[in-house]
């Protein structure tokens, strides 16, 4: 009870402060007309990067370094989960669900996979991108894990493969960034480093952005699948 009242007092003070602060925020429209960043990206974004989806342009070009950091965060989380569940490396179940479920998931799986691929590859044209598509792929392996039992996953897409994919995705991202330095520009330079901008709105537009998306997609999918698999697997340690 004391704990609750103390918490309420803290929250009341914090709430008053935050509300007072939020009341003084400028309206979005005012800020955007003043913000150099947003104005530049809205007016020049397409010609700068060749990507129609400006959010993707920001994520993979203007602020590509953030995305590298974010990919590394997933990498760290996956590594951390693996480290915590070290030595517990046995499949949980071999049975899975009924054969009807197994058959229907086999029909469904290619579609889910292609959907993921679409979300990844068209990230610079339509909503979506490497991260969202990667999560869809990860969900696919989770579904397989549930329907077929973890033994199936253990045998076919084992931890080794996932670790390999994850590392390769991350390294591909860094290599794509280093191309910029190699071409005499800066780390993670896109169009300036000689990638072709293409016709905005087409799949081949956006210079390195689709490639970066693919790298991130692989990394995210493998990383999240690793996390899930390690969390469900049996504890023998």
């Amino acid at each position, binding site marked *: 009870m004391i704990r609750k009242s103390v918490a309420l007092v803290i929250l009341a003070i914090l709430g008053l402060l935050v509300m007072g602060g939020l009341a003084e925020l400028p309206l979005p429209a005012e800020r955007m007309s003043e913000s150099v960043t947003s104005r530049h990206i809205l007016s020049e974004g397409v010609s700068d990067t060749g990507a129609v989806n400006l959010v993707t342009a920001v994520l993979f*070009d203007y602020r590509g370094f953030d995305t590298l*950091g974010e990919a590394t*965060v997933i990498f760290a989380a996956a590594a951390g989960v693996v480290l915590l569940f070290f030595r517990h490396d046995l499949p949980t179940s071999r049975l899975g669900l009924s054969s009807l479920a197994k058959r229907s998931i086999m029909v469904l799986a290619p579609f889910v996979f292609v959907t993921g691929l679409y979300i990844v590859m068209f990230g610079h044209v339509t909503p979506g991108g490497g991260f969202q598509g990667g999560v869809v792929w990860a969900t696919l392996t989770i579904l397989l894990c549930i329907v077929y039992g973890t033994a199936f996953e253990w045998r076919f897409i084992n931890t080794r493969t996932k670790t390999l994919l994850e590392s390769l995705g991350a390294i591909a991202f860094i290599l794509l960034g280093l191309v910029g330095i190699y071409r005499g520009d800066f780390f993670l330079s896109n169009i300036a480093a000689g990638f072709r901008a293409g016709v905005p709105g087409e799949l081949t537009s956006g210079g390195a952005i689709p490639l970066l998306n693919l790298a991130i997609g692989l990394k995210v999918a493998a990383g999240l699948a690793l996390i899930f698999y390690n969390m469900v697997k049996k504890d023998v340690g």
Partner: protein
Amino acid sequence: MSHLPVMIIIWPLIFAFLTPLVDMVSLRYRKHVVITFVVGQLVLVGLLIFGDSGGTTYYPLGGWAPEIGIVMVVDGLSRIFIMLIAVGTSLAMLYSLADIPDKESKYYVLFGILIAGMFGLVLTGDLFNLYVFIELTSLASFPLVAIQREGPAVRAGLRYMIFTVLSSLMVLLSIILVYGALGTLNMEEIGRQLVSIPHELRVLILALWIVGLGLKVAVIPLHSWLPPAHAEAKSPVSALLSGVLIKTGLYMIIRLPLLMSQGKDEMMIQFILINIAAVTIIGGHLLALGQRDVKRVLACSSIAHMGYIVLGLGIGSLLGLVGTLFHALNHMAMKSGAFFSLGQMVKDHYDFDSVQGKGRGAPWMAAVFLICCISLIGLPPLGGFASKWILGMAAVEAGQPIYAGVIALGTFLSGLYYANIFRILLNPDVSVESVKTRWLSAGVVGVTGFLCVVGFFAATWITDLIKIVAIGIL
């Protein structure tokens, strides 16, 4: 244009990403890979710090202008912290080779990510990028705490994690508010425009920063996560967390509020900082006095030392800032050294009953431990004395001699518990067998002992260097 600033961050990332691949081939290459990495890192950092004239350089990522993309900034302050991080992490990494089994490949992955995160944190000139790196460092450090995978270690890691996530959320909120108010994320631009933010919003932003970062550097009301986390980890990780990681929070405290605030706000912040620091010094030492476990004592003393470091900031003068930075460097050397040498003397249990007489089993390690502890207490002729002396002088010079008294009291208190530890470690009534030390870890321990001594005899030279930097900050 030199690509060094970004290469320093990329290098440990490449190490982290390649380690799993190398381990798939064979675990035998661990030592070669790690040593290559450490040497490469030291070369890169050396080139960055001593390679140019020492002014401020910018590295625009992707070639975008600073206000549009992300920019890396190398200035005096980041150079000092890069040096601190590079030395501290290299030592801990080499020490790990002997202490951590080869099959723990994820340990090295996380270690590499942690290094990259800390470098990124002190180099970036973009506020949101800073947040990403804060999360990167914290996320990589949680599992490292729990590497022993035993109940108390996991629980310490969990507690550390909950507190740190809360602090990151507060920092993130304040970053969002800054963007909401100014529409920019470039830190220099923010420093220039912060005055134009309406008063209440600015107070909120600064309050969230200080509370969030206070949680990170563990000043006293917000410290309770630190002792278990730093004590339950293995020696190299304890050294890394106590010696290096909490200093990154200090970096942010120096970098942001002092730059961002002017006039009345600044006075207020300094008043708050200096008093929190005084409470932290006394409280940290009292906490340490109450512990019955050597590693916990060292962890609690880290709280007190963060107090000394923040005290210098709170004084707000040039000399205070010099003392702060100097003490941060010294504390890295002496606290890492204490954890390293303790780890060589005692292998697993660190409570007072188990460590009886263990110092006599490894006399050389005990000697270095003694040096580090004397430095931590702050007695001449060692580094800790030099920096505490400067902090005391700064307090007197600023007309607040009471805080010099606090420092003296802290020194007295820490003398008490370190004397007690030594009485126990060198207890002649218990028979112990001698402990063998591998040459690599012995070398690492030796280097830290050497750094503690250098801290005193090269004090004037070092402080002169720091002074040049500090003038640039104020």
